[in-house]
């Protein structure tokens, strides 16, 4: 399987250890970074230098999660092939939303923003993901005896990430190459090129079984 990315498992492990240790350390040593539940009643709040997430923002996040959650999860899964990681990316995407509270022109802009954040977060995570190779989708399709689906997933999974993301957005989400270019911050010509090369690579892998609509 070709990946266009390498990985740094050591960095990942060290990073996670550091992350958890710092959280434990923060809990041990003081209240400064204490997390603050949204529902904290007045008068119970502790002094914090962390921005408070308003109920409105959380409500909006929940609404967006309900609308786009599964789509973003699939998109992240298409990068990471692992449900736990895809869920992490989905959560981080929503956290970015409540932290930045971006202003959108319309629903399409809103969705594109979420996809772009999820794409960037996913790509940054791919590198140290090599050993976490549990592919729940592959397992589920095998358990359901759907080899016809699992071999398509397997073929797409083998694509380099720059092709895979375009294939997913084009075929699954139905985005145009211009829209994909916006989401991935690429030139449209680059997206078209990646789409064509992705198709070529799929033809290479699937041979006569290839019949993606073009």
């Amino acid at each position: 399987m070709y990946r266009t990315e390498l990985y740094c498992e050591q960095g990942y492990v060290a990073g996670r250890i550091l992350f958890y240790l710092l959280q434990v350390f923060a809990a041990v040593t003081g209240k400064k970074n204490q997390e603050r539940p949204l529902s904290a009643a007045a008068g119970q709040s502790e002094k914090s230098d962390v921005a408070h997430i308003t109920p409105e923002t959380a409500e909006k996040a929940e609404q967006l999660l309900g609308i786009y959650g599964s789509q973003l999860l699939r998109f992240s899964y298409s990068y990471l092939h692992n449900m736990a990681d895809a869920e992490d990316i989905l959560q981080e995407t929503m956290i970015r939303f409540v932290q930045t509270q971006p202003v959108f022109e319309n629903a399409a802009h809103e969705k594109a923003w979420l996809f772009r954040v999820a794409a960037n977060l996913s790509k940054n995570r791919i590198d140290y993901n090599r050993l976490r190779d549990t592919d729940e989708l592959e397992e589920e399709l095998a358990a359901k005896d759907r080899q016809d689906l699992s071999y398509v997933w397997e073929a797409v999974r083998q694509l380099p990430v720059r092709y895979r993301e375009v294939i997913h957005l084009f075929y699954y989400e139905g985005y145009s190459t211009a829209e994909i270019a916006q989401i991935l911050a690429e030139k449209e010509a680059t997206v078209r090129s990646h789409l064509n090369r992705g198709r070529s690579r799929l033809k290479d892998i699937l041979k006569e079984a290839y019949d993606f609509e073009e």
Partner: protein
Amino acid sequence: MTLKNKYEEAMDHVKMTDEMQARIMTGVRNAQGKAAGGRSGEFRGHIHISRNTRMIITFAAVAAAALLVVSVTGIPGNRVVPEQAGSQAGTADSSMDQAVWSVTECADIGELSEKAGYTVKEPDADTFGFKGAVKSYLAYPDGLAEIEYTADDGSTAIYRMSPGEEDNSGDYNSYDAVSQINVNGTSVALKGNGSIYVLAIWTDGSYAYSLGIPKGEGQEIWQKAVSSVTGK
């Protein structure tokens, strides 16, 4: 049913469950600061730990930080790109640019070498059946140089060169056949099935190389292909 439909049906199996949605919202509500990472909200409330334990934790945190620094800066092939924190009150477009992951498409081998920071040795595509193929030159952030060949019939080949000796092929499949051949004094690992190989991996001590040809080739072709690099 087309492959598009099959891909859609396969991906439809990936769904956000109610439990997952609840977990995510708990994490979102507990999010703190800008540096959100992993599953937030796993550590809440006070934990009573002795002074000695605090010292151990502090030491462990410092050690982990040191390990992290070594990992990020000292290991070839690492492509962890730090994320830029999004602006707290930024516009939607500016906040979308909070994470960076870029591959640069280069015009030719000269530009690829320039971007990679070393002279990239280009194989002779004629030797492995890709004469006249369309070539894409890609430079990755950590110095990995890639040349992708796409032939008229749609078949592809991928050549990679990177600093260090670690396998840079990105091909982690298991193959029935793994052979070692000697090309101009360099030991080259060939991987494939039966007498047809799809991947060659080698190193000259300073750089790692790989050439992948998914359609597969016999050993003689691989010998010539690798020789076109090692003979330079």
